[in-house]
């Protein structure tokens, strides 16, 4: 069973704007897929649907076999918490928490015990190479370190699916390359990765590229 399957998925907002039109594709386990297209083509909307923060207006999206549009809020929340990790555009770190606390949030939400949370957080901090920044606030670290922290938070609970919205968008080319290398390594470890990006270099590092235009999948 493929972790991500979309079938004619579409999204029309209450304002009448059609953001996505009948998109169908599937992503296999350990596969790293880039979602490309110009601004406003529907990349972020597709990522929001895959991340279960929204549900399609038409068609279906299946995450680990669960049809998202048939789930209630509680089940969608559980799915997000257990099976999905999200790297947001602009990092979206919580500004009042330290880097370690930011990374620990998914574990705390899942009800892990404090000692286990600390052990696991330190492991992940070391894995993404920002152990030294653990006690700093997001405003006190560089953009590359913030993106690593965002990735660490997305993978700390070992989700089956990792979604990344413009993971290299705010970074210089050297740091961007390091981040792509980190994501590649995660995919090799079996994680399914979908990445929305403008960056052709990032797209080239993926197994496959989906191209959107005006909400429709063209390649």
């Amino acid at each position, binding site marked *: 069973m493929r972790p991500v399957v979309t079938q004619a998925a579409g999204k029309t907002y209450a304002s009448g704007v059609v953001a996505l039109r009948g998109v169908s594709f599937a992503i296999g386990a350990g596969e790293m897929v880039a979602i490309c297209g110009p601004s406003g083509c529907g990349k972020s909307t597709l990522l*929001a649907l895959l*991340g279960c*923060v*929204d549900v399609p207006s038409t068609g279906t999206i299946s995450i680990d076999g669960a049809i998202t549009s048939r789930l209630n*809020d*509680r089940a969608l*929340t*559980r799915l*997000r*918490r*257990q099976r999905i990790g*999200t790297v*947001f555009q602009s990092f*979206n770190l*919580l*500004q*009042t*928490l330290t880097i370690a*606390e930011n990374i*620990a*949030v*998914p574990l*705390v*939400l*899942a009800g892990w015990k*404090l000692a286990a949370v600390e052990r696991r957080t330190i492991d992940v901090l070391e894995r993404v190479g920002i152990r030294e920044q653990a006690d700093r606030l997001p405003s006190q670290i560089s953009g590359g370190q913030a993106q690593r922290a965002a990735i660490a*938070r997305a993978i700390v609970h070992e989700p089956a699916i990792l979604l990344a919205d413009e993971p290299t968008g705010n970074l210089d080319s050297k740091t961007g390359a390091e981040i792509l290398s980190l994501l590649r390594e995660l995919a090799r470890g079996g994680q399914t990765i979908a990445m929305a990006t403008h960056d052709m270099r990032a797209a080239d590092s993926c197994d496959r590229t989906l191209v959107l235009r005006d909400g429709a999948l063209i390649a």
Partner: protein
Amino acid sequence: MIFDALFFRQFRRNALLSLVTIAAIALAVAVLTAIELANASAARAFADADSHLHDRIGIQIVGSAPFDERGIARIATQPGVVAALPITEDQLLIEGPEPEIVRAVGVDSLARLPIDAEFRNERPGPFSDGGRVQSALFAGGAIVSARLAAHAGASLLVRARGARIRVQIAGVLPAGRAGADSSTVFFDIASAQRLFGKRGVLDRIDLIVDAGERRALVARLPPLVPRGTQAIDTVDQRAAVGTLRDAFTHDLDALAAVALLVAALLVANAGAIGVVQRRPEIGILRALGAERGQIFRAFLAEGMTFGAFGALFGVIAGVALAGLAARALGIAVDPSPDPLLLILCWTIGVVLAMLAAVYPALIAARTPPAIAMRSTGFEGSSSSRAKVFGTIGGVLLLAGATFAAFSNPTAGGFAAIAVIIGSVCLVPSIVDGSSRAFGQVADRRSAAARLAAANLGVTPARIGVAVASLAIAIALGASVAIVIASFQSTMLAWANATLRADIVVSVPPGTGLSSALLGRLRALREVAHVDSKRTTNVPFRGSLVRLDAQNLERGASGLRIVSGGIPSDREAIVVSERFVAQFHVGLGERISLVTSRGPVPLRIAAIAADYENAIGVITLDTKTDRFLFGEREATSASVVMRSGANPIVVRTQLAHAAGELPIRLETTAELRASIVALFNGVFVAAAGLGFVAIAIAILGVTSTLYALIAERRTEIELLRVLGLRVRGVRSMVLYEAGMIGIVGAAIGMTLGLCLALIVLFAIDRPLFGWTIGLHVPLGTLAAIAGAVIAAALAAGLYPAHVAARLLVRDAVRSE
């Protein structure tokens, strides 16, 4: 832990908002604590100091002449009698440049000093120790008012029954105390008996009795009382000041409830702003897997924390405020407040803050993660809710009007709550409408004014909470001002009508003022006019009610008629409002009164205001009284002095004219002054509380504007790029603040008037049976409105300064 840290670190991140919220709760809890403590102290003080007043003495044993004191023993041992207090009363002439006749009261200082409560809270001094006061009393000393002697240890030269003696002052009674006017002198009973030649006899025995036994005792006592005396049930004869206190206790409780509501709104406001400001964080948390319940609980915990700290500060401040409130009511504060009461006030504050946090917590929890991550999500949904709230508000106002029409205290309470909540619900719609109105009238050339008007309409829900809290604070001040002004003007009108006399002459029960004596009083050079009255108690439907017989013909009755007209026929009477409420009778109805001619039906021709007697008063014309009960002597006379006459001199002349008859003289100026002082004191205390409530609400305006500017930062920067000058930005924020002030003042004044009407006519009238005439102090209200609008403008200064500092280059950078 991390989850809590995420929310609690907001305290530091938004210190102004957090402090305003905590201050709002602290204020409300302080008001609540102060009022509850003052009320508790008032109840205790009245319970202590009233043994010489009628309102807690259940029964009095009185006779037409002094009676053998040995009779007290068999009465004191009756079941149900808590204490039997021997009293003797007479008169003294105090010598000096202006001789003065005063009332002398002898009390058993061993059993109980009727004025001992006054000394417990006195400052340390030569006679602050009750034991020393008592010793001085045993030695023949007296306790006098501050007017008669400045300090204990001094002496007065007096003339008693012809003998001239020097009396040492054992203690000085503080001014303005209930139960004794400044012309009363207290002695130990043995000294008084010696002084007035009344060895072995008493003028009166006051019985403090178990409430449940009172009626049975009245029935059982007649064969036991000394010869020539009778037992009179006096429990219903409550003093005007005591009844007034009940009314104010009730209204002050309502005031505390409104203060709590203001605080609740500010907590809800802070919570709603917090939700908006933390929308991205909530979105991130929801996207990371936070459940709605977890978000809800976090916001609730935040409210509870605000509540815990705010209520703690509030209880501490409330204990201090209680002193102010109690002084305003003329009572002593208990130096050791009941800890349970303080814990209760703290708990109410915490629960209130939690309840107020429910609404923002629900908004936060119900925000879907996708919408929460968009910057326009919250306000868009709030705008749509404004219409729903408007409808709910309209329904609640209608419900309030319906409840008020029931003229029942409980329904009146519901009416007040419905009107307050209904008005709050209507505020977003009113803000929306005001935005359009301001847009129409704004200067066409002033972009700042038009932008400000438009901004009000963009965020009606959030601006609405700030406006609502301001409006309720103003309504609190306005309604208190109207209620107090109405009480004061009505009470003074009543006092001026009923206490037109300068001096009231009365005689002990069982005696009377003869026509000859009344003639002598009228003949005095300083006396302009004398009206006599006969007051007795008559049985009516199982109670003893007061029956006043006086001249009703000349329109000089001193009655303040509420409905009907002064009777012109022999079968007609006037009854008091309390009588109507107590016995459920109405104008034109006939009631049967037991008279010397047997039961006689009498028609209620008029209803009069009376704020003194709790059971009710029947008033009839002297001729009717003579027809029904035969020839009877008057029991009191109201003396009006000639212009410029000295009341102290006239008192002395009156006493001389009375000769051996032990008359009692009361100067009404002191009673009138005490009414004015009582209302002024309450007004100062209430105005102080209202002022603090408005100040806190103004801080709420600052925090709201500040938060909105933080949110609109990009928009303001863009306006700067498009050419809006720094002065324009500043003006725009100040226009917004001013508009908030104007809308808040308009809603607050309207709501205040409605609340005052409900308190006066839907709650107090059915509760106390009083008609209080509406008196709107326009000057005070205009001053409040002007001050609030000015304060709202001042509240906009800091946010305007912050907005004006936003730089054009930041707009370019963020783009």
